[in-house]
């Protein structure tokens, strides 16, 4: 994986370490990063985006504790062997949680009832 594959938006309200973690979750869940694939080093990511290496380490550390990445013996990180395919439904649902919360919040702000929102969502999901 190339460090420039990550998109960093420094001015976004979401902290940079979360942006990196979120992208790793998605890339791994979608199979775009295959098990065993090596990740760019902390330094490469930090230099490519002119961001603090500690921010990158934090994201990698969290991804490791979630079981997404594993630390290689020598140095560096790779996508964990049991990545995307063995994820349970609840784990995959957890990935959607931020988007679902944002949707719920917007629906409340518009003072929408649940029914029409759910109907529309079901349609989008092809049901």
């Amino acid at each position, binding site marked *: 994986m190339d460090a420039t594959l990550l998109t*960093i938006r*420094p*001015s*976004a*309200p*979401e*902290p*940079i*370490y*979360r942006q990196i973690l979120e992208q790793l979750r998605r890339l791994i869940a979608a199979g775009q990063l295959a098990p065993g694939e090596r990740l760019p080093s*902390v*330094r490469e990511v*930090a*230099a490519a*985006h*002119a*961001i*603090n*290496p*500690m*921010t990158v*380490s*934090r994201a990698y550390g969290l991804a490791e504790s979630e079981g997404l990445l594993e630390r290689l013996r020598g140095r560096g990180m790779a996508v964990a062997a049991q990545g995307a395919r063995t994820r349970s439904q609840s784990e995959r649902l957890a990935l959607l949680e931020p988007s679902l919360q944002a949707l719920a*919040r917007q629906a*409340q*702000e518009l*003072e929408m009832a649940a029914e029409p929102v759910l109907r529309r969502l079901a349609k989008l999901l092809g049901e």
Partner: protein
Amino acid sequence: MSEASSGYLPLLARGLWHSYAQHAALRGVDLQVPQGRVLGLIGRNGAGKSTLIRALLGLLVPNKGYAEVLGEPALQLTDRVKERLAYVPQQPEAFPWLTAEQMLTLLGRFFPHWDAPFAREMLTRWQIPATRPLAKCSPGERQRVELIRGLASRPQVLVLDEPAAALDPVARRDLLREVALRAGEAGCTVLFSTHIVSDLERVASQIALLHEGRVLLHCDLDDTKERYARLWLPPRHTSAAPVAALSRRAQADGSMTLVIERDSHGEWPLAAQLPGARLDTLALEDLFVEIAA
């Protein structure tokens, strides 16, 4: 000097007060920067940023208070500390009769860890005129030379006062990359003042918001983004506005905007869940504007 111990603070200010004539520039500032951290000092023009930096480094004798650099009193720094400290002021004025290259060659002799190849490379990369004396260079060029000087000395403490103004986007990115890697890898401690918030968001590990001579907020950058939000309450709910808000503003239509903080359990105040209430995450710049405006 015990750099390895976790409580070590390369930059420290306690109770700094300073006035110019009738104007109080610093009104009791406490500030600490742990080793290897990048502190972004944000404030509007005139908030006291440059005064604070000068007092921190012993370039100004404050009316009250105390400062330390690398464990030594700021007003009595020894050469040992001075050679590990690099300060880049907003308007450099040193050695106007020398060219950039002559100046860097001269100063390089005084710094034991001087990185001459880096200095040469940056002079080309940042397009500094080779044969022109500094006095004939533009203010932007002179500040770029000073930034090269500061970085080439491989300091343990790097203090940059509004460095971004003199740099084009490419040079700015170069500088931010250097700052980030020096801090993260070499353990260099950095203080970086600016009113351009977006520069800080890439590299800062902490931010301090200086407003009217006081530090209003000092915390981890990631924390800042996750801990504060803007709450908008429709007119019918303004009486439920939480008491503890960092700022509150009544709008012309009777609604209210507040900056609120999560409680110790990570929850937002209850008012955020009222029907019609709107909670928006705040980027750093928004937070700055909401609090300092």
